């Protein structure tokens, strides 16, 4: 064996020269080295070799060749074009698989597109404010005992303190967000709502005025309305200087009309009222520190001021100003653009908590990853078909990275095709999805340049994830083995993982299907839920400042109305809680409803003991309690009557006991409940009707209301319809689970289809030989399907375990959840999944089994 030059030096040389043609130089080096060895021995020669390498590295020769190489590399772009061309041709050649893959990826990506467009819109929230970077809101964390609550609001007193004591603030804005008014018009009053704000509000935040000047809010009883509010009220935006009367609040001068603000702000208002309109002591001195509701503090710092300083100041402030010793309060600085995604209560406007995004993200991933995995799976499995091509490419000098890029390009092209499909699905489900969201009005899922770009990046990224593994696999194929059609065993070593992932996919689909069944049953149960009171033939009418007695007497006269009762709300839909002292003197939290003497009968409530028609009077004396109340206070129903409990300072006598009924939504367990008879609290009339002609009835109602109504439109609806609406969330859950289940299932089935088609094709020869030897089509179908049947069975077993676990951990935590997971649910899920899976498998395997063996074997 000849002496070898130092390996490291040679590698270094090769690395440095890269793709420049230096074969002859390396040859020169080697020849010189051998000469040296002969003359001076191996050690000297090695040293010399190193020296020669370095002399070459710094020589013009290499520089020149590298430069020439770079110039000649210009058609590298052409190479990319070639990758693209080959990719498209390949995809076209294997149309069936390409379509299958594209379809699967499209489904997988669709949900992610929703997430991306949503997040990209949310991230633009409040980015239009000129001083946005310097604006911070102050949030409060209140700890009482072990209970910690984060509020988006802060006591107004903090604003005063910052104003007087903290130097770094350019402006401190106080907002009181409970401005509600009713603009008085002759025909019909129009309600508006908005904020009380300081004059500087319009300068700090970028809300430009169309008419009027920025000092518009410097005086009391001044109001700035938005453009659309102005149109709504006066049909014109030229309304500056106009006076408008707000019911019970006096005259207000419109001092400005604001251009409509974009959707992407965390403020929501129709009008801004000058802060000075509020009486100086609209909240008491102590409440200024302890009250958080509706009060918001925003600080605009001087430019480039460090918010940390403000934070330190606030920490110190919280330490000195604790009013109640057992309550700990902390204030924090929150940048403007983080407000909308912050996790806290009592926000001033719409909220998009980040945790919601995380949950949504996980769901999107659960749909996307199986789709990616299917692609990877099918691609690797098809290695056999492509191995000849790869072997030839490699033999002809294709570099590993070139083949890698070739396959990645193929995947990226397919994901881009899939993106088009995903976009289609996205556009299809967008509206539906938005209608399910509580804060839908604050979301704009239109496709902008930014989202389009994000979609594109996402598609390419998905392509890289899905195609990375197969590309790596193909790039590493040994050309000799590949050409001999001997696919290395490394694929089959991953068979276990592949099987596992397929099983997991189907298990996931199974969970979705199962949750669909459960939600469906829950919804159905709720629709027919027995609340313990009458739901049908009842119409609730919002009283809206009319005289309750008058409404009752007038409505009673209408034909078709049997009886009218008054109440402070609708059971199961609205209720208020209060602390009372039970007969034993202990305090007890109860839910209350104010009713009149007709209510119990109209709503078909059962009186267990005593009577249920006490007089309705301003200084109420009687109360009705439910059975649960007696149970909680340890009074037997027999001795309950005549006992008193103290409610808001009054001793009320228990006059009757009502059978338990659901006064709250079904998921809330039945708790302590009292009926009270104070006429001051009536807000709605409940009409018991026997008319089947709802239209005539409502027309009559409208007519009567016009005479009674306080210039406001009639608000009436059937009780059962209102109850159904309150279950809307379940319907949405049903839809969501159904849709996601459909997606997950389609992705899994597509993956399965791809695998089955591929393996059946692969085993065609075997099937043919068997058939020639006498096997029939059905036994062949079974032979080809057998493995997949096993997979499906495992998937279902895992799915059952998984859904049981989910059910145990999530559903059982929802109190009084009506539906339970039954054997039938599981069976329905099994049958559905097995049926679809079998259909997918059998159609393909049967097709393979039916092929004429002569067709296949004639070439052999």
């Amino acid at each position, binding site marked *: 064996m000849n002496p070898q030059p130092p390996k490291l030096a040679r590698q270094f040389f090769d690395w440095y020269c890269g793709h420049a043609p230096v074969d002859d130089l390396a040859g020169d080096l080697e020849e010189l080295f051998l000469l040296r060895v002969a003359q001076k021995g191996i050690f000297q020669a090695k040293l010399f070799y190193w020296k020669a390498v370095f002399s*070459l590295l710094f020589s013009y020769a290499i520089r020149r*060749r590298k430069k020439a190489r770079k110039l000649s590399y210009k058609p590298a772009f052409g190479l990319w074009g070639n990758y693209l061309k080959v990719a498209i041709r390949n995809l076209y050649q294997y149309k069936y698989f390409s379509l299958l893959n594209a379809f699967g990826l499209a489904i997988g990506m669709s949900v992610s597109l929703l997430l991306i467009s949503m997040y990209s819109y949310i991230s633009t929230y409040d980015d239009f404010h000129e001083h946005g970077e310097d604006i911070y809101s102050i949030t409060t964390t209140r700890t009482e005992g072990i209970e910690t609550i984060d509020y988006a609001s802060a006591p107004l007193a903090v604003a005063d303190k910052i104003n007087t004591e903290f130097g770094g603030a350019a402006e401190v804005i106080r907002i009181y967000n409970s401005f509600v008014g009713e603009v008085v018009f002759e025909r019909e009053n129009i309600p508006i709502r908005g904020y009380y704000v300081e004059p500087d509000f319009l300068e700090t935040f970028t809300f430009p005025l169309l008419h009027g000047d920025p000092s518009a809010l410097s005086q009391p009883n001044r109001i700035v309305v938005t453009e659309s509010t102005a149109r709504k009220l006066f049909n014109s935006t030229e309304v500056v200087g106009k006076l408008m009367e707000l019911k019970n609040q006096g005259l207000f001068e419109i001092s400005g009309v604001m251009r409509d603000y974009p959707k992407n702000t965390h403020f929501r208002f129709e009008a801004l009222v000058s802060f000075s309109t509020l009486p100086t002591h609209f909240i008491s001195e102590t409440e200024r520190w302890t009250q958080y509701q509706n009060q918001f503090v925003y600080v605009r710092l001087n430019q480039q001021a460090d918010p940390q300083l403000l934070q330190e100041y606030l920490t110190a402030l919280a330490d000195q100003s604790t009013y109640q010793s057992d309550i700990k309060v902390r204030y924090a600085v929150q940048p403007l653009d983080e407000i909308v995604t912050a996790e806290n209560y009592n926000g001033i406007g719409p909220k998009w908590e980040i945790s919601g995004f995380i949950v949504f993200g996980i769901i999107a991933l659960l749909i996307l990853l199986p789709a990616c995995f299917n692609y990877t799976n099918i691609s690797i499995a098809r290695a056999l078909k492509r191995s000849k091509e790869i072997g030839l490419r490699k033999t002809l000098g294709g570099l590993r990275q070139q083949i890698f890029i070739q396959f990645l390009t193929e995947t990226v092209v397919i994901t881009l095709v899939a993106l088009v499909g995903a976009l289609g699905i996205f556009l299809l489900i967008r509206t539906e999805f938005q209608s399910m969201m509580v804060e839908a009005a604050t979301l704009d899922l239109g496709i902008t340049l930014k989202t389009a770009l994000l979609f594109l990046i996402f598609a390419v990224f998905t392509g890289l994830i899905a195609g990375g593994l197969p590309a790596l696999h193909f790039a590493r194929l040994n050309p000799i083995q590949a050409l001999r059609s001997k696919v290395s065993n490394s694929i089959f070593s991953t068979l276990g993982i592949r099987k596992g992932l397929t099983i997991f996919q189907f298990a996931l689909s199974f969970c979705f299907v199962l949750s669909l069944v459960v939600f469906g049953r829950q919804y159905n149960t709720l629709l027919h839920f027995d609340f313990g009171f009458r739901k049908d033939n009842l119409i609730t009418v919002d009283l809206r400042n009319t005289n309750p007695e008058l409404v009752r007497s007038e409505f009673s006269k209408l034909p078709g109305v049997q009886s009218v009762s008054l109440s402070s709300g609708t059971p199961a839909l609205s209720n208020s809680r209060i602390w009372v002292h039970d007969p034993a003197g202990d305090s007890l939290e109860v839910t209350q409803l104010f009713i009149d003497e007709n209510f119990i009968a109209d709503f078909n409530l059962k009186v267990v003991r005593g009577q249920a028609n006490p007089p309705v009077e301003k200084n109420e004396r009687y109360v009705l309690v439910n059975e649960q109340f007696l149970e909680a206070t340890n009074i037997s129903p027999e001795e309950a009557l005549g006992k008193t409990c103290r409610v808001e300072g009054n001793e009320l006598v228990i006059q009757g006991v009502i059978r338990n009924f659901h006064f709250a939504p079904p998921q809330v367990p039945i708790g302590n409940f009292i009926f009270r008879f104070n006429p001051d609290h009536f807000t709605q009339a409940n009409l018991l009707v026997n008319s089947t002609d709802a239209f005539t009835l409502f027309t009559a109602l409208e007519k009567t209301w016009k005479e009674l109504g306080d210039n406001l439109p009639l608000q009436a609806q059937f009780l059962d319809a209102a109850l159904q609406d309150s279950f809307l969330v379940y319907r949405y859950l049903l839809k969501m689970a159904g849709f996601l289940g459909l997606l997950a299932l389609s992705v899994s089935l597509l993956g399965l289809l791809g695998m089955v088609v591929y393996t059946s094709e692969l085993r065609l020869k075997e099937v043919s030989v068997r058939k020639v030897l006498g096997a029939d089509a059905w036994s062949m179908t079974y032979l080809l399907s057998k493995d997949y049947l096993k997979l499906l069975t495992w998937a279902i077993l895992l799915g059952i375990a998984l859904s049981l676990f989910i059910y145990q951990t999530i559903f059982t935590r929802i109190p009084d959840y009506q539906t339970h997971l039954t054997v039938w649910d599981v069976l329905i899920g099994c049958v559905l999944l097995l049926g679809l899976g079998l259909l997918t498998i059998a159609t393909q395997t049967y097709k393979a089994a039916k092929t004429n063996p002569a067709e296949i074997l004639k070439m052999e």
Partner: protein
Amino acid sequence: MKLYLGELEELVLLTVATLGDHAYGVSIQQEIESRCNREISIGALHSTISRLEDKGFLKSWLGGATAERGGRSKRFFELTPSGKKALNETKSLRDELWRLSQLKWSGAK
């Protein structure tokens, strides 16, 4: 533009011309070393050759692979017509200067 020949460039060109069909990196270096008793690194040599190629005085082609060089091929060099012309011009300029100078040529032994 007139291209001048540096001293080493001239030496390399002449050596290539001398070696004829066997002018490649190592042979050129060995030739210069033995004839001029001058050590020249392979890097410096190839730099000069590359410059001469830039100037269009040399052209090259790749020979076949050889066993003693680790299977690597040789790059052979050859004078181009303009290379020959440049050598001629250099020589005639020198001769002219010699003729005009007071020096006496002692001649080669």
